[in-house]
């Protein structure tokens, strides 16, 4: 199991290959549908320093607000990344992200963006909200909470030993494309569809 400290540099990320297990430690930001839309309409200076050389986590957490005004993550597994496909490559380029954490994988445009900018797609296990929330040691700050609500706000979090698998790398490799293609072939065989 490789360890990766965030923020990190391009050379480190370029070494990662499809199938690698990685444990992440350091600071990352969360963002999903509303966040990606917002990030693409202008350059959001307030969040940019948290994104540069770090990763964005596709998650809509359950969050508890404590009496002293601080927050903690109660449940925080990945959400489906496919919805961010139209935006992701541009968000990576514009904000200097080194990676994306999500589930279900992404497609050609993002894969090209990973290659161009030196970034990876990191797959967390969908639904494992308790295991992953336990890796979130601190909520540093939050952006757009009032506007987007708890699940869609951009939360800046410190994580420790956050487990992920590289399923799309910066060299054009994609486990999702491989599995899709192999399973399509099998489906065609089972249904006698042949191309």
């Amino acid at each position, binding site marked *: 199991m490789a360890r990766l400290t965030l923020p990190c540099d391009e050379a480190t990320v370029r070494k990662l290959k499809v199938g690698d297990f990685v444990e992440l430690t350091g600071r990352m930001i969360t963002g999903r549908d509303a966040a990606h839309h917002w990030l693409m309409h202008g350059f959001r200076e307030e969040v940019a320093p948290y994104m540069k050389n770090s990763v964005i986590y596709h998650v809509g957490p359950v969050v508890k607000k404590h009496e002293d005004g601080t927050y903690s993550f109660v449940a925080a597994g990945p*959400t489906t990344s496919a919805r961010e496909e139209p935006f992701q490559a541009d968000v990576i380029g514009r904000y200097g992200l080194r990676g994306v954490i999500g*589930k*279900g994988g992404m497609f050609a445009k993002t894969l090209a963006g990973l290659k161009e900018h030196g970034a990876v797609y990191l797959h967390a296990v969908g639904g494992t909200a308790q295991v992953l929330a336990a890796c979130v040691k601190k909520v540093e700050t939050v952006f757009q909470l009032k506007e987007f609500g708890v699940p869609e706000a951009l939360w800046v979090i410190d994580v420790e030993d956050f487990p992920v698998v590289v399923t799309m790398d910066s060299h054009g490799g994609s486990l999702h494309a491989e*599995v899709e293609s192999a399973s399509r072939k099998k489906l065609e065989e089972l249904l006698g569809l042949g191309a």
Partner: protein
Amino acid sequence: MAGPEQWTEHFVNVIARASSQLPPDVVDALRRGRDAEAPDSLAQKALDSVLRNIEVAKGNWQPICQDTGTPLVWIHHPVGMSTRMLTAAFEEAVRRATAKQVLRPNAVDTLTDRNTGNGAAPGIPTVHCEEWDSGDVEVHLMLKGGGCENVGAQYTLPNPKLKADRDLEGVKRCILDAIHQAQGKGCAPGIIGACFGGDRGSGFLESKRQLLRPLPDRNPVGELDAMEQEILEKANQLGIGPMGFGGKTTVLGVKVGYLGRLPASYFVSVSYMCWANRRCTARIQPSGEVTWLD
């Protein structure tokens, strides 16, 4: 008979149980899937993580998944009980469970695009009340996450691309195609609920109702039982595997029902439930005593 407040309290307990305690038949199926995968494969590691997560959620009574889903509930109630009261009590239970972080604030007002913050919005939760002859109330709750809801699909037959005609073979082809289309995006290994016939709305609803069936449950209709077993076996040959990482465990169960249809229409509606198949059944006697059936 209990008043609205007592029903709200019962429903909050049902929601809390559904959100944190996965039914034993689902856990067993995931364990079998885990053992079938190659040692140290991505598939096996993913299922190890899933099984660990289930234990933590169970022990701490915390949400298994942060997407606590759309609450879909079917309430069987005795003759004469107010369905408006039961519906209002359930809606209040969703708001209360959301305030306690048992549920995520999971409802967006689609017109204003704002999260309502309390878990409720037009059409959320969905409450179905059905009168029955018993003096008890039986509550069947399902928390259905958005990721798996998004990979549901509806087909109209015939479908030349799939060589699917208006017959059971055609229905089977559509369901297998939907499983392939979903890949890992609905949090595989999933459970498939399907319905053929009906209209676009009733077909999807029946497909979801099928998901209330426990996994070992066999379809009483012979042809449908055979179809369920065949699809399960073939789907697990696709090699999609847990999370779409590749592997043997793509689907944990297939449940198929049917409805009547118009001569012009032949829909096949497929609902995909993620591995976190959060269903809960409670039978509540007039005394207030609760028996958990899931």
